[in-house]
Structure formats: C-alpha cells, structure tokens
C-alpha cells in the first residue's frame, strides 16, 4: 500500500511570533521555519506503517515556495521514499490546497493519505475534510490511533467528551491529532541519504488547478496581554467578586 503524506512549511513552533507594525500580517523576516508539528506526526505514522510492513511506499507532498523543499527533505530524512513539490509563491488557502492535493491523489492513487489536522500558522482545520469531499473518499479526522487491517482502517478519533472509533474502507483520508505518536528526530546519516531520494517539482497550473483566493486578510493583532491576578483574603470575598465584579455567578 502506498501512503501519501502532506506536509506544510510554517513558522517553527519555538519562535515567539511578532505582528508587523502595520498589522498587515505576522512578521516573517528572518524567522525560523519548520515542518508543521501535526504534519510531522503524519509523516511519523506513515513511516511506522511502512516499518511494520503495512505500507510499501511513503510519498511526501507539499505546496509552497522553493524553500518548502527543506520540509520535504526533512520528510525524506524521516523515512519518506520520494517527494512531490507543488511550487507556488502565491498564498494558498485551504480550498486551493485541497484542490491541488486532490489532483495529486488522483495521479498517485494512494491507499491512504495522512495529513495534519491543521497547520499551526492559520489553524484552519479544513484541508483534510475538503480533500475528502473533493476526492470522494471517506475521512477520519483528529486520529489518535490508526490500525490498518483487512483492507480497512480502524481510526480512533479524539472528539469532545471522549474517543470515537470509526472504520473506513480504503483508500481514505486521515488527519492526525497530537497524541497519535511522538515523532522521531531526523538522524544526520539519513539527512545525507535523503539527498539521493527522488523529489519532483510541479506547479498548480501543471496539475490543472488555479490558485484563487476567497478571503482577504484585513488586520492581524497580537493576543491581548494577560493582566496580573489578585489574591483574595477569604472565600466570601472571592464569591463576592465572582458575583459582582466578574458576574459569573
């Protein structure tokens, strides 16, 4: 079985984000970029399925500027067999990404496609679901466990208030939650070997997709600063404040 994994280049999660002075966007100047953490979990799951002999090939795909090849290379170092770069300088919204990925799914015919449930930059949580709809494939989002057996995928999903287990016929789309696995670190020898693995570059146009935008970013603001708390001297005072100041009781 072939597994297709989508990865996205985002600001490294360790970086403290700063908003541009004119509030037009987040400041990306000299900011360290990395693979989206949920995508790392997706790559790790695919590689583990290959190590267990369930998958035969892992293909990583990304959409983005030339520099996004760094993230593909990380995926190759972590164990993907080959990579596809859909190169574009344009900002790619969820629907455009899903349309591109649907074309890649059509061309590659994977038995399973794994994506992160969302990217930590825009936190949309849309691409996996849109892709499933466009490709006409069953989907299981927010996976915390994936078991492949008898041509089916049994996926445990993290839903409000508990866990839900669903069974999907393959091919299918799975999006990863945080607790699915703990991704490994890339080893230096594997980073060097990754250079020899195939990486093909295509464009949205070559795939027959026009990148359009339906959303205009008006303003970006940093979250409000949290105010310091106060100490109360008694339960009575606390109840009073909750009732009369916070008005939550």
């Amino acid at each position, binding site marked *: 079985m072939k597994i297709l994994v989508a990865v996205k280049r985002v600001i*490294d999660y*360790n970086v*403290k984000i700063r908003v541009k002075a004119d509030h037009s966007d987040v400041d990306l100047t000299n900011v*360290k970029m*990395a693979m989206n953490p949920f995508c790392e979990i997706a790559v790790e799951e695919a590689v583990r399925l290959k190590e267990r002999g369930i998958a035969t090939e892992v293909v990583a795909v990304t959409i983005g500027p030339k520099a996004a*090849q*760094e993230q593909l*290379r*990380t995926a190759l*170092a972590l164990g993907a067999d080959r990579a596809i770069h859909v190169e574009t300088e344009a900002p790619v919204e969820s629907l455009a990404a899903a349309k591109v990925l649907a074309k890649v799914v059509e061309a590659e015919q994977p038995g399973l496609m794994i994506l992160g449930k969302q990217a930590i930059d825009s936190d949309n949580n849309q691409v996996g679901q849109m892709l499933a709809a466009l490709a006409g494939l069953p989907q299981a989002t927010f996976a915390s466990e994936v078991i492949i057996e008898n041509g089916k995928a049994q996926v445990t999903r993290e839903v409000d208030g508990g866990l839900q287990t669903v069974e999907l016929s393959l091919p299918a789309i799975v999006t990863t939650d945080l607790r699915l696995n703990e991704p490994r*670190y*890339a*080893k*230096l*020898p594997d*980073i*060097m070997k*990754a*250079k020899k693995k195939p990486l093909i570059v295509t464009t949205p146009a070559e795939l027959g997709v026009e990148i359009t935008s339906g959303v205009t970013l008006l303003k970006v603001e940093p979250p409000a600063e949290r105010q310091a708390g106060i100490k109360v001297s008694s339960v009575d005072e606390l109840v009073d404040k909750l009732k009369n100041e916070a008005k939550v009781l």
Partner: protein
Amino acid sequence: MNFDLTADAIAFQDAAHRVSAEVLKANAKRYDETGDFCRESLDALGELGFWGMNLPDAYGGFDPGSIAMSLAVEEVAYHCAATCSSLTAHFLATDSVLLGGTEQQKQELLPLCASGEKLGAFALTEPGAGSNPAEMRTKAVRREGGWHLTGTKHYITNGAYADFLVVYAKTDESQGHKGISAFLVDRHTPGIQFSSPEKTLGLRGSHIYEISFDCQLSEAALLGDEGQGFATAMAVLDRGRVEVAAMSVGIARAAYDDSLAWAQERVVAGKPLCRHQGIQWMLAEMHTQLEAAKLVTYQAAAARDSGGRFSLESAVAKLFASEAAAKITDSAVQVHGGYGYICDLPIERYYRDARITRIFEGTSEIQKIIIGRAITA
C-alpha cells in the same frame, strides 16, 4: 565568498536546532546547577549521528562540510554550551585519529566514534605545559612489546567519561616539539588515575580532569608515526578553533536573542527598554559583534574545506568570536539588570560559559601570536 547556505547546511542546522531546543535546553539548567555530567544530552546527539559530523563517509561519518558543522555546533552551544564543549572535545580526539592515525586505526576506531558508541578525550595540556606544548613532561619510553607512558595531563575534557584518550607524550626528550608522539589509550588501561572533576566557573556539565599515567601500552597504541604528534596536534587545533568560534557564536546568539526579547518586553519609565537609546545602542553593538563573529567563523569554516592551510583564518575566527561572546554576554547581563545577575534566568550562565572560549584551544594571546606571525611572514 558565497553566502548562500547549501541544502545540507540548512538541514544540519535544522536537525541540530530541533534536538537542542527540545532535549538539550531542558537539561542545561540542571547540569549547571548540579554539576552533573551532560551524559543524556551528549548521548541524544550521539544517537542522531552528531558525534560523527567531523568525519568523512569512509570512517562512518558523512562530512557535510565545515559550514554545516559550524551551524550545528552553534545550535548545540545556543541551548547547552556544556554539551557543546564535550562534543567538540570528542572531535579533537577523533580529528587526532583522522589526521594522525594509520589506516587500520582509523578503520577500527572512527566508525564507533561516529555512531555514538565511543567517546574520546584529547590529552595535550599539562600542569606545566598549556600554551607551550613543546615543554610537556609526559613521556613514553619504548619497552619490550610496546611503550611505557608516564606523566600527568590537566584540564582534560570528558576525561573519566571517555572510552579512549588521545595522549600526547615525548618519545624523544632530546628534541622539542619534534620529539612528541600521540598515543591511543583505552580508558580502562591499568595505571590511569583520574582526579575528581575540577570545579569550574562555567560549562559545569562538561567535566575536566587531571589524569596521571603510569601505563604499559601495546605497540599498536602509537598513533601513526613516531615524532608526528606535534604536527597532528597543531592541525587538530586549527580545526578545533573553528568549532570554538562556532560555540562562541552560539552562546553569544543565545545571550543576544534573550536580551532583545527582554528589551522589547520590559517596560521602564513608561516605554520598553529598547526604546531607551542607552539600551538600544547596547543592542546595536551586540548585534554588530554577533554578525561579525558569524562571518569570520563561516569564513574559517569555508577555508577549512578549501583544502589548504587555514591556521590564520581559524585563529582570526577563534579570537574574534570568543572576544565578541565575552562582550555580548556581559552586555546581556547589563541589559537585564538585576534579572541578569540572578540565577533564575540563563543570562548569568551564558556569561560564565562564554569565559572559557577565550582560554581553551589557545588563549586569545596565543591566537594573536599565530595571526601576527602569519601576517608578517
């Protein structure tokens, strides 16, 4: 000089950043406070292949080029300078084998060093021979079936934790530096005595030892040819100085990043610190020193890869970057004020950790001698 980083260099930097930010950073404060050896952090790097960054494919490494290596060393130092010191001390030992060893010695030992199984130590300095190695007293005398090694080495990083030591000793006392040879000494050889680790100002997770030898070594312990030890050690130190420069840059960058963030956040007299010109100028100085230190370091790394001699470039990089790290970490304490002086923040640790970079692998004064001789030759 080409400033575009290769894909390898970026990938190595990323890989080093990741493990350092997540694993090394979490241990760094504890190592500093308890003085525990940086074992977990060092092993985490070993498992991922970082112990073999300095070695070519043929010996189990994958030499990605010195710039990639410098960037990785910088990332390690940024998050834990003590671990960086132990790692680069290992490189001094394996570089000694790579540059001075026989083909058989290289084949037997280096792949185990690259894979994180064998840790090395580099034993050149003595209580009475630091900047003047030719005056070393440790000696190896030929005996039936091998050598008898006697003497004392000092300030040996990794010492008691190393699996093997590269020990430099006089094999011909009638000669100066030409009478020095290098030996491979297994840590468990009878007759080695390790002191308890020295108490130090900084790099407290990277232990240094005094080691005394009264050992019988086999014939095979001689590293390469007799009398070649000094030449090997000097070539090793040329390489090592690029790593000390990278380490200095790493510590300095950590201090600078923290200072900039602090100055943007901390409000004094109604505005952030960074809007007060006195502080802004300090940040400007720090930034400029840091950028210049990076450039001389990458230049030395590029020179190291070009194949020719690079003693001058590596001395310039080591001198400038270590002195810059001293200024930058000092300014970091000043920008932070009282917060920089207390041990809750890592600022005072950067200040202490940076201090040794002006001393080990040749003091700043020795670098000036090397530079001065090279430019007036």
